[in-house]
Structures are given as C-alpha cells and as structure tokens.
C-alpha cells in the first residue's frame, strides 16, 4: 500500500508544483495591487455583488482574507474536484483501475492509498502556496503597513486543508458510487457552487440562514479574524468529520463496486429469485 501511495503522489508532482506556484502568483498579483487601489476599493465595499462572492473591501485585512483566502481556496477546491473524481472514476473510465484492482491489494488499501496520496499532494501544494504568499506579504509590508503577519497568512491559508480534504473525500465517494467520472465531477461541481454561493447568500438573507449548515464553506473562516486568531478548532473538527464520513462511505461503495462495469448502485445488487428463474 505504501508503494501505491508513493506512486500516486509522485505521479502528481507536476500538479504540486504547477498549482502551488500558480497560487503564489495569484496571491502575488492580488496582494501587490491592493495598497495602490485601496481607496477605490473602499467605495465599493457595500455593493451586494461583492458580498455575494464573499468579498470584504473595507480594510486591507478584510480584502486579503476575502480575496486570497477565498479565491485561492476556490482554485484549490477546483483541483480537488478534478483530482478526486479522476482518481477512482477517471481511472475506471481509462481502464487503469482494472490493473490495480487485480494486484494483491484489498479495495480498502487501494482507496486509502489514493486518499492519502491526494491529501499529501494538497498538503504539499498548499505548503508551497502558503510559504510563497507569506514571503510576498513580508516583502510588501516593507513599504505598506498591513496588519497581517506573514505567519498569520501562512496559517490562514493552511487552514483551508480540512475544507480541501472534505471535497476530496466527497469526490472519492462520488467516484465510487456513480457510474462514471463525468457524472461524479458534475455532481461535485454543482455541490461546490451551491456550497459557495449558498454560504454567501445565507449571510445576506436572514431567512436562508439554516442552509449555511449544509455548506462546507460555513466551516471555513474567511474573515480577517483568522489572521490573528487562526481557524476555529470546532470548524476544523467538523470538516475533518465530514471528510472521514465520506471516506468511510467511499470505502463501503468501492468495496461493493463492480469495476469496469460503470453501473448505478441499484444495478449492482443481487438479483431476486424471480428474476433469476425468468432469466
């Protein structure tokens, strides 16, 4: 199993570097443009369209929290959707999963290896992105007074990992239960969009408040407080709990799955005696 983890992780080294440095570039652009545009942004702070996408333009710290933390994490989640649905469902569609399943590994070992590898990949990716963004902030702070420490930005970015794990495990679960990758990716993307906008809309409309609890973004703090206080332990535990629950569901479904068939769950059950006799 260990060798499979190594293989799965190594096969994504380009993604680690590409997405890691891409997120640094993203942060560099957005952190560096803000000091010069601060006054203009302040006048836009009450516009609903910005609230809808979770942007706080009233302060440098609010802007950094809402732009860097939210959009870097959106990009990270996009990677998680792509990677998690291409891991089981995608490999089954490609036919490579058949080879791995025919190896002397149990289904739980295969799934665990893939889940661990994806988690490690995201960890590396975010470590690169967080260190890079912290360095850029440190450089910008030389000339502009920003009330966020590089370490605060580093920990805030790293606190997105439980959220990423949540999406990875949901992706693995969908890959294990739905017939193909396209469907798994579609369902997860819809959930992701609903989760993101649901959280922001619920923040604007009081009557929609209860739907927040179904959004993973509800458990990820993107206010400026995170730079000083860090992520709340309860949020981290909830996200890790969700990730664990979907991992267990993925294990159950993957164990039951007929690889290469691409069938719906109800097509995988045992036939009844009547069906058997009539067939």
């Amino acid at each position: 199993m260990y060798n499979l983890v190594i293989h799965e992780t190594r096969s994504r080294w380009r993604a680690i570097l590409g997405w890691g440095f891409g997120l640094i570039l993203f942060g560099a652009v957005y952190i560096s443009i803000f000091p010069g545009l601060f006054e203009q942004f302040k006048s836009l702070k009450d516009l609903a369209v910005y609230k809808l996408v979770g942007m706080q333009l009233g302060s440098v710290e609010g802007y950094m929290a809402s732009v860097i933390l939210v959009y870097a994490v959106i990009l990270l989640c996009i990677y998680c959707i792509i990677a998690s649905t291409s891991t089981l469902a995608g490999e089954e569609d490609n036919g490579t999963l058949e080879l791995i399943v025919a190896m002397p590994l149990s289904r739980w070992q295969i799934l665990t290896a893939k889940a661990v590898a994806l988690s490690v990949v995201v960890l590396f990716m975010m470590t690169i992105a967080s260190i890079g963004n912290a360095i850029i902030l440190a450089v910008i702070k030389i000339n502009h007074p920003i009330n966020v420490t590089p370490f605060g930005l580093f920990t805030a970015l790293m606190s997105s990992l439980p959220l990423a794990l949540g999406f990875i495990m949901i992706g693995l679960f969908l890959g294990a239960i739905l017939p193909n990758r396209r469907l798994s990716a579609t369902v997860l993307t819809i959930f992701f969009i609903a989760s993101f906008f649901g959280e922001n809309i619920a923040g604007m409309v009081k009557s929609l408040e209860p739907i927040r609890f179904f959004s993973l973004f509800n458990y990820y703090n993107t206010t400026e407080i995170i730079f000083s206080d860090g992520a709340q332990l309860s949020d981290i535990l909830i996200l890790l709990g969700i990730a664990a629950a979907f991992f267990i569901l993925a294990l159950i479904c993957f164990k039951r799955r007929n690889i290469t068939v691409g069938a719906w769950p109800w097509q995988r059950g045992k036939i009844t005696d009547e069906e058997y006799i009539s067939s």
Partner: protein
Amino acid sequence: MSSEIILQTNDLSVYYGAHRGIKDLNLSVQKGEVFGYLGPNGAGKTTTLRAILDIIHPTRGTANLFGLDSQKDGVAIRERISYLPGELSLYRSMKASDFFDLLGSLQKNKLDKSYLEQLIERVDLDPSRKMKEYSHGNKQKIGVVAAFMGKKELIILDEPTIGLDPLVQQTVLELVQEVKKDGRTIFLSSHNLKEVQTVCDRVGIIQNGELIKTEKVKTLITQQLKRLEIHFRKEPPHGAFPIEGVKEISRDGNLVLLEVSQNLDRLIEQAAPYGIVDIETKTVSLEEIFLAFYGPQNKGGQNV
C-alpha cells in the same frame, strides 16, 4: 500436469441488473495445464475472468482459486495470480520501466529483475519510453511482460497476442509453454483458435454466458467433428444422406466429402448401398469445430 484443481467455479453467475453476464458457470482448471477459453464476442469470457479476480462481484455462486474463496481471500489469491486484461490501459505519462517497477513493488515477493530483463529482450521492447509514445502492439508487449514477470502460479491472459506481430506472437506462445513446463497454470481467453490449438490442453466453450462444452483439445479435434472423404463405387444422388449431424461439403464424381458431428453409424449404413471403396478421415482444426459450434446453421453447437 497434476490433478490438483487450481481454479473451480461453482454456479458462478454475474448479472448486470437484469442483463446476463454469465450464468451458472461450472468449470475447473487443473494445476499445470493451459486452459483455453473460447467464445464469440459478448459471450461472457471477460466477465468470467473479472469475476474470478473479484474485479466484478459474482451475483451468485463462487469462484475458488487455490482452495480459497475469490471474494473472501482476494488478496491472498491475487498474490499468486497475474492478469493481462483484454482491453489493456496503461498510465499514459509513465515509462514502461517505471510501470514494471510499480507492479513489482505491489507484489509480496521480490521481483526477479534478470527474468524481467530477459522478457523485455525477448519481446523486443524498449522500456525507457513513456506509454503514450508506444504503438498498440508495443503496449500489448508491455502487458505481456507484466503478466509473465512475476512468475505467478496462475497467469490469466485475455487475448494476449492481439495486435502483436507474428514473431512476438510466437514468443508469447513459447512463454506459455515454458510456464506449463514449469508446472504453472495458464488460463487463456482467445479468439485466435490456431494458438489455442497449439498451446492449450483443454478448452471451455462459452456461449450467451453459459459454458456449453469443456473438453481436451485433442478429444475435441478427433471426436467432435470428423471430415470423411468417401470413395463410392456408384455416385450417390444429391441429398442421399439426410442425417442429423451429417453435412455434404463437396463432391467430385464418386468422391464425396462429408462433415460428420454425430450419427456416424447411420451414415455408414446409408452409404453402404452405393458401395464404399475407401474412407479417409481428414483432420479438422479447432477453428472449424468452433465455427461448427457458432456457425449460422448451428447456433450453440447442438449438432456438434
């Protein structure tokens, strides 16, 4: 070949919802034999292999390998098996050499590197390239090497020579024979009946998900279908032998070529009045037997 049973299926059935994959399959493969598995497209050959390896879970019935249950003891079983899928898919951006390393690393037993190198050389493969750079034939070579490199007790091959040039096809057949000589077992699903006839000891014939025949290749060839060339003293009229299982292939005056799958005694009886000068038995290939099973006039081999 020993009488020890390596693979045994008991009423093995796989249904996809209401669709039939395989039904009540009962077959056994002995240690040290090369077992050929024949059937037209969609007959259920690949489904059988996947069910045996627990890639697909049986709807009903069991598959036992080395005395172990394929579902309960899958890992222990797969430690002793290697498998070449019929539709081989490889990691596009991985080098062939890395692929062999990966497969080797997932095995319990240490890989015999010198044997791996030998195999690579024998199939004439350059393992330093990425999968996406290989032709279909070269990808199949990779699959062949991967199947044989672990020196497993049972090697399951689904169409192993498809897309290979005749020289490499020959090498694969040699490898199969070497495995057999080694006392190990091969389960070979193939459409290439000549190669099945060359290397297999026994064959199982599957149609519409049901095993309709299991027989030794030699027996199948010598007993199942005969081609008789009868030299008559007096030319019999056309349609002189309206017997079930007897078909006239051609005639040249008093020389009539007949294909006989059953009722040989009745044929002799009805042929005697025309005066039999000579009877010659012609060799029938496995291909002809297979076509007799599945040919348009004889779907399912009722007359074979």
